[in-house]
């Protein structure tokens, strides 16, 4: 992640010409380059030098608060089952999700889908054996040691325990994707009324996204 940022900075400073983009993941950083503009032999030492530098000083990560409604059974069809399998009450599951120190590691699979690690270990469960054909947009789900938020209605095999009124992907916004690798995030419980109010603002495009960012 730090290297992704360091390469991004070097590129905006006009260094590393020919780098098309970089994709950070939990295991590696993919660097795509244009062979018409550079070569691997030319880039490798430059990237290696950035690796050797270590994490860039003053690397800032955002702290985000994401509202989530756990109360409606339609939003949380798997909450009871998760509670049963983790030997908790539904309220304890919600409390553990709220207390988890989440961090966005990777975005991928579809635009805006974030793999968010940091789930409270007592909630670890494998994916559902039978994935759902249709998971509603903005569903909040858990599986393994992670949580995620579905940016679109799509198939999905994770356990649905709530729904956020936010859209993880909105092409009307200047930054269509809300989450970014490196973001810290925590969920904030909202009731159905608050959920409905925020959804209206998000749909209308009048929601103030800056209120979700605690610090920079």
């Amino acid at each position, binding site marked *: 992640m730090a290297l992704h940022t360091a390469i991004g900075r070097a590129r905006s400073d006009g260094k590393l010409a020919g780098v098309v983009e970089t*994709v950070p993941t939990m295991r*590696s950083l*993919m660097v*795509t380059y244009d062979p018409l503009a550079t070569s691997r*032999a030319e880039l490798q030492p430059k990237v290696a030098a950035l690796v050797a530098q270590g994490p860039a000083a003053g690397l800032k990560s955002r702290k985000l608060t994401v509202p989530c409604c756990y109360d409606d059974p339609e939003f949380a069809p798997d909450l009871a089952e998760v509670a049963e399998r983790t030997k908790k009450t539904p309220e304890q599951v919600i409390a553990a999700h709220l207390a988890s120190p989440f961090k966005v590691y990777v*975005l991928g699979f*579809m*635009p*805006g889908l974030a793999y968010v690690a940091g789930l409270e270990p007592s909630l670890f469960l494998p994916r559902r054996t039978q994935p759902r054909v249709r998971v509603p947009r903005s569903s909040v789900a858990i599986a393994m040691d992670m949580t995620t938020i579905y*940016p679109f209605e799509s198939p999905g095999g994770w356990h649905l325990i709530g729904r956020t009124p936010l859209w993880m992907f909105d092409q009307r916004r200047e930054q269509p994707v809300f989450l970014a690798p490196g973001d810290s995030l925590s969920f904030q419980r909202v009731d159905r009324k608050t959920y409905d109010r925020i959804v209206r603002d998000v749909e209308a495009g009048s929601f103030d996204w800056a209120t979700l960012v605690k610090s920079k």
Partner: protein
Amino acid sequence: MSAALKVVRAGLFDTLQDLGRTGFMALGMPTAGAMDRIGLSLANALVGNPTNSAGIEIGVMGPDLLVDADSVRVALTGPLSPSLIEGPDAPPKPLETDRSHLLKRGQVLRVGMIDGSSTAYLAVAGGFAVSPFMGSLSTYSRAGIGGFEGRKLAAGDALPLARAAAPGGDERKLAQPFDYGSGPVRVVWGPQEEYFSAEGRQTFVSQEYRVSKEADRMGIRFEGPVIVHATSVQKGGADIISDGIGPGAIQVPGAGLPIVLLADRQTVGGYPKIATVASVDLPRLGRMLPGHAVRFAPVTVEEAEALRRDQEARLLRAIAGFVTARPPGGIDLVRLYEENLIDGVVY
């Protein structure tokens, strides 16, 4: 006055594509873009556009398009069965590929079937007046992003043209068909070739693989001999911690058959990648149809880079070598036909 190409009849899968929406893979955004960058570049160059302008990528069967503009210059590239141009009051005439044509208001362009390729391209001089999304006009239809309303073209669509009338100038023609190359598809080993046994790697580069029916803009699943993983699939030999998927990455899931990932590929994936198609051969893969057979041949990174630079140089030479579509003697018969001046004499 409006200026548009109206879709009278939709083809099978026609989308607006440019050379891709690069730079946002870290946000999970697939690049999309033309499956055959050479076909799109040539079509654009024939009508005088920058090669990375958006054109219509035609999938398998093309649309019928009505010219609702004073005039428009178009070019088609790809192995199409004859396309026709019909006037309101003139008999249909064939429209050659690999050259530009001037079309007038009321004419209908009936794009032919593609013969032996999965993609062909239509470019219009000046391009389409559609707003880019994240810097690109490429359509990523799975998420409804980019292009014309984020989807393939449908009957009734009016694609707005940037120019109300075609610029003046001669029609241009590709001097000879562009050579996409033949022989094995060149690949660079990795990034996870160590997930395969020596025997598995040997199978991959020595046997023939066939394009299955599961081939689309996302990628091609091949059929052929099974590639053996180094560790048994039951013990996780076909699972890696997900990492980035570049253009042409070749995943081999537990079943042991290769999947080449193309324009609409997902940005990350959890299957090991035995090799990556050298970018020089991506346009060939972008044209392949079910049933096409290929072999894969390993090259070094340096060879792959040199092959790509050589191909780019050939593309630029082909563009610099366009000829005026006018017979010796100076009479532009083609234009005369198009202006309907001597139809009666010819037919």
